[in-house]
């Protein structure tokens, strides 16, 4: 299994500013992901954080808005840039570990972002 921590746990930000969210995993993992959960909604995958190369973004998400770093196998950051109220969401970091039968995905506690 994997234990994932995120910082900050919550923040309130002003429109036009940027926030960087940190994700730390307690073991080395190959696969890390960032998800967004808008109020009352399900989880939507933003991107796969690749170690040593550029992140792979899902449709509707771009690097300029959500730059991601992955400097090593235990750490990643997601920046929400030039924020607007529509960016108010919970941002969740996730890591997948290969099990005997398939990959298991573990999640951090999330970062609750409110943009005013």
């Amino acid at each position, binding site marked *: 299994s994997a234990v994932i921590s995120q910082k900050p746990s919550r923040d309130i930000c002003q429109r036009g500013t940027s926030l960087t969210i940190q994700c730390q995993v307690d073991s080395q993992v190959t696969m890390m992901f960032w998800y967004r959960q808008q109020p009352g909604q399900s989880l939507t995958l933003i991107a796969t954080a690749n170690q040593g190369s550029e992140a792979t973004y899902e449709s509707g998400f771009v690097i300029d808005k959500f730059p991601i770093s992955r400097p090593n196998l235990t750490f990643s950051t997601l920046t929400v840039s030039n924020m607007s109220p529509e960016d108010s969401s919970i941002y969740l970091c*996730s890591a997948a570990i290969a099990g005997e039968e398939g990959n298991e995905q573990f999640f951090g506690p999330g970062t609750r972002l409110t943009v005013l």
Partner: protein
Amino acid sequence: AQSVTQPDIHITVSEGASLELRCNYSYGATPYLFWYVQSPGQGLQLLLKYFSGDTLVQGIKGFEAEFKRSQSSFNLRKPSVHWSDAAEYFCAFPLNAGKSTFGDGTTLTVKP
């Protein structure tokens, strides 16, 4: 494309009553399927998983789920609900490369 659907947005049950949360999947072959729980202000916790083999899967916190290919379903059940089970429940379809697609979630309210 692979997907999961949770038909019930909100379910209310009395404490001690049984619970069934529905999940339907769309996939041409036998899928892997997970159930997660998200308590208020918390991240997601894996309740149980189905990869293959026995179609009745036991999970944590007294939950179980049954994979039914004929109905394309993977419903979550619990024989007796506790007040602490009030949460959001997500059915998920693991994709390749470790990521997953999630259903819209079902909010469970437990009445005293």
